[in-house]
């Protein structure tokens, strides 16, 4: 049995809008183990991105606790690297290489020489060595996302937090990126907390799936999806899993065929 890396206990999250206080999630519990590809899945408005922000340390829960390796999460930190949905997360004034090495320089986690080696290795892993000295505005959406992933991985965080990272990509690129993420995971076995609203993506990418219900976000189910990958996407078990999640999310409404 692998050890628990991230513990979320009874977490209620609220944020202030100019005129309202919105409850995003209500008493959410879950635990992410070392090496998990843990997916949080839910319709829009279930507070899944808000949970990720709270784990990232960008907002504090009004109730409950978030612990990483037993330490309470209080502020953003490089032990939890975030990859966002938007392409704007890369610094336009830095080249691919400078973007990747930037967190290592700022945090001084690695000595200079090691940081250089790690940055180059990370860029090679996401197959961008040719574009090492290019500025982000010259890259495609998929490439920018690969840089963001390389930057997060090079720092070797305890956990990688991915907020719908492929949602803004076209369908073909998204498929390639999912495959690349899985093959990277096969090599490095990092822990990732992945937020998505696509059932298919959740089953493909995830080893565990946390299903949330909306308004406010509450845990509906936690499922094991380690058995599914691109090789059995066309098999009936995959379809059954997808249907099961669909039912969990939308009740017994018939799937409109």
């Amino acid at each position, binding site marked *: 049995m692998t050890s628990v890396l991230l513990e979320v206990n009874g977490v209620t999250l609220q944020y202030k809008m100019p005129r309202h206080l919105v409850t995003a999630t209500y008493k959410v519990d879950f635990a992410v183990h070392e090496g998990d590809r843990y997916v949080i899945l839910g319709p829009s408005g279930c507070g899944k991105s808000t949970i990720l922000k709270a784990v990232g340390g960008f907002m504090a829960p009004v109730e409950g606790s978030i612990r990483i390796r037993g330490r309470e999460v209080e502020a953003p*930190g490089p032990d939890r690297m975030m990859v966002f949905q938007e392409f704007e997360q890369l*610094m336009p*004034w830095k080249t691919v290489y400078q973007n990747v090495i930037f967190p290592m320089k700022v945090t001084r986690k690695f000595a200079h020489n090691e940081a250089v080696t790690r940055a180059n290795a990370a860029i090679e892993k996401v197959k961008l060595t040719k574009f090492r000295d290019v*500025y982000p505005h010259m890259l495609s959406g998929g490439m920018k996302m690969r840089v963001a992933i390389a930057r997060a991985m090079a720092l070797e965080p305890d956990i990688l937090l991915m907020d719908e990272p492929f949602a803004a990509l076209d369908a073909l690129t998204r498929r390639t990126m999912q495959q690349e993420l899985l093959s990277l995971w096969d090599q490095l076995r990092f822990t990732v907390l992945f937020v998505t609203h696509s059932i298919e993506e959740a089953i493909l990418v995830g080893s565990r799936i946390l299903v949330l219900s909306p308004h406010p976000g509450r845990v509906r189910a936690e499922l094991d999806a380690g058995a599914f990958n691109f090789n059995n996407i066309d098999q009936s078990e995959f379809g059954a899993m997808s249907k099961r999640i669909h039912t969990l999310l939308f009740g017994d409404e018939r799937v409109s065929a």
Partner: protein
Amino acid sequence: MNSEHQNANLREEQRPEFEYELHDSGAIGDIERPLSFVERVLNNEAFQRFMILSVLIAIWELYARWLNNSLLFPTFTETVQTFTHDLRNGVLINRMITSLVTLALGYVCGLALAGLLTTFAVASNIGTRILSTFTAMFNPLPAIALLPLALIWFGLGTPSLVFVIIHSVLWAVALNTLIGFRSVPETLRMSGRNVGLKGARYVGLILIPAAFPSILAGLKIGWAFAWRTLVAAELVFGVSARSGGIGWYIFEARNDLDTPTVFSGLLTVILIGLVVESVVFRAIEARTVNLWGMQR
């Protein structure tokens, strides 16, 4: 209704499918090829500017020759002759240096103050309110209107000039910088805070470069305001200053009804403006915002 549907389905099924071998696309030449020399020259910004200036100068020269009154409107050639003459005998160089030193002093002080104010302003909500109230109050106030006050406070001379220049630079730059800081995308802010950046390092490593397009716009506006204010201020009390700048050079010439020299002074003001805009700021732009794809 139903039978129509079936017919449609039938038609769908009857349509054959195709798969093609790809044509050889070699006939159209390289997919990407360089533009010809003429095309590149015509697209060149410097060349285009040069053409615009040549046309303007030609119009000037022709009109002045037709008017034939050097006191009212000297020709371009006459202006250039006076300009080179005063450049050679050092008068114009001295005036230029006096003006530029004062200008640099005021500009740099203004920038430093603007940087300090905006850093303070982004730190808290109340700071932002204070700065936006200040800029709303002082930005529309013409620097020249403060000159009488500056003369009372600091007397005739450089300190008064520096004071009004600071006033004209500070608010324009601070306003633009603040707007720039506030429009930095949330994701970029979060990715900065994610790696633990805070305070001055956060401002220096994330906010300033991310807001650079609007900071640069502020620098340009500030520069233009400063230059204008300086020349105008020198015109107002240039007479009594011992070593005047370009403004005084123009003022003196006007007193002597020496219009070609007035023109040569104006030409100098324009030339310095052009050089700073198209050489200094252009170079900064090419190395920063254009390179980073933040501005076309």
